[in-house]
């Protein structure tokens, strides 16, 4: 039946450890970039002028309506079609799988996070906005002091889902030759021709990571959303 002994050989353990590191690096870098860009985009998304929200709407609509695998392929395989790109200064980066994967993941998470934040900004209770205006806050101050801090906090539960989805999305990096956790399992599969054990081990690692992330977000919610919890006596 199942035989996991070959997985604990030092070389193979190292393959998984390196894979874990690659996965975490992909996840953290893309999440950080995606979140940083999504905050200004969310502010534009809730703007009243179609000139401001239109382009952002189009961006999130297209990204959320197409498979992430396709976006990754477009960047990694597709861009090389154009001589302009091949001759550009960015080519050393764009021909590198890890950069392309991080870029695709960041573009993807940014679109989802933008819509999530925009939803949270819109859901701010109108009393808070009125109160801010009544003390004479400018629009910029209103966003900086009232809308964004509150929207970011209230987005935490939805964001934890997004982070888990992104963790799972990093597995696509293995399709462009990266040796993340899935890539490591695939390598072992083709080396030993064992269909179950390598992927079961990978699945277990992802499960543990998912549980870990969910726990971290529970803690964060307890801290940052305490003011929304029912009053305890």
């Amino acid at each position, binding site marked *: 039946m199942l035989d996991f002994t070959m997985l604990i050989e030092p070389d193979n353990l190292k393959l998984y450890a390196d894979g874990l590191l690659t996965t975490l690096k992909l996840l953290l870098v893309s999440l950080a970039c995606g979140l940083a860009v999504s905050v200004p985009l969310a502010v534009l998304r809730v703007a009243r002028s179609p000139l401001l929200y239109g382009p952002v709407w189009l961006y999130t609509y297209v990204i959320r309506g197409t498979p992430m695998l*396709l976006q990754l392929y477009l960047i990694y395989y597709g861009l090389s079609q154009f001589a302009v790109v091949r001759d550009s200064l960015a080519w050393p980066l764009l021909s590198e799988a890890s950069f392309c994967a991080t870029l695709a993941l960041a573009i993807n998470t940014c679109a989802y996070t933008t819509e999530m934040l925009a939803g949270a900004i819109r859901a701010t209770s109108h009393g808070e906005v009125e109160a801010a205006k009544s003390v004479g806050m400018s629009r910029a101050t209103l966003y900086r002091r009232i809308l964004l801090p509150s929207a970011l906090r209230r987005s935490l539960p939805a964001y934890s889902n997004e982070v888990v989805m992104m963790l799972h999305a990093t597995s696509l990096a293995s399709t462009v030759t990266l040796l993340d956790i899935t890539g490591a399992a695939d390598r072992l599969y083709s080396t030993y021709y064992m269909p179950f054990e390598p992927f079961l081990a990978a699945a277990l690692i992802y499960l543990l990571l998912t549980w870990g992330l969910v726990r971290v977000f529970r803690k964060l919610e307890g801290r940052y959303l305490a003011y929304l919890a029912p009053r305890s006596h």
Partner: protein
Amino acid sequence: MFEGYTGYIVAGATTTLQIALSSLAVATVLGLIGAACRLAPNLLLNRVAEAYSTLVRGVPDLVLMLLVFYGGQTAANALLEALGLPAIDFNQFMAGVLTLGFIYGAYLSETFRGAIMAVPKGQWEAGWAYGMSRPRVFLRIILPQMIRFAIPGYTNNWLVLTKATALVSVIGLQDMMFRAREAGAATREPFTYLLVVGAVYLAITSVSLLLLKWAEKRYSAGVRMGEI
């Protein structure tokens, strides 16, 4: 246009839609069974259904796809051999559909569970008061009413599932994605073909969103909304 690859890509789009719709059917059945088990008055069924939805939702689709695709046939045939039955040869289409159905069944079981719980308990009691059996109350009273609550989650899962079908290209199924890569490599225009295929995915999701709006209206007939 597209140097004679139009038909090739269109055939891929058909395959993509076939895979998506077939897996949706499998997932809906598994999701309903899963939700029914989670809500059944039986601890063992609860636990099994909970483990199914938690484990599947905690692992990336691609890993499950590779696991089921590479390992599923071995496992199924080992089981058949143990039962003294002849081995069957899964074709790729079946393997892809079953895998996607298995994965999204877990997500749908959560959607359906929430929707069933959103139907007021009094509806069950009213059904029992008329002497209906549990399954009959479920089919005649609860199911039609839960559809309204399930529609948003169901559509959401359908959209994610449609996009996830692109993964079957990794295991060699000739869907739209696979063919775009092939045509792109043959003509040295990978970007063009991937872009065309992206437009088709976008068209599928757009039409789905329009259908969602229509269905939401249809199944909310007679429901009074609070005025905000």
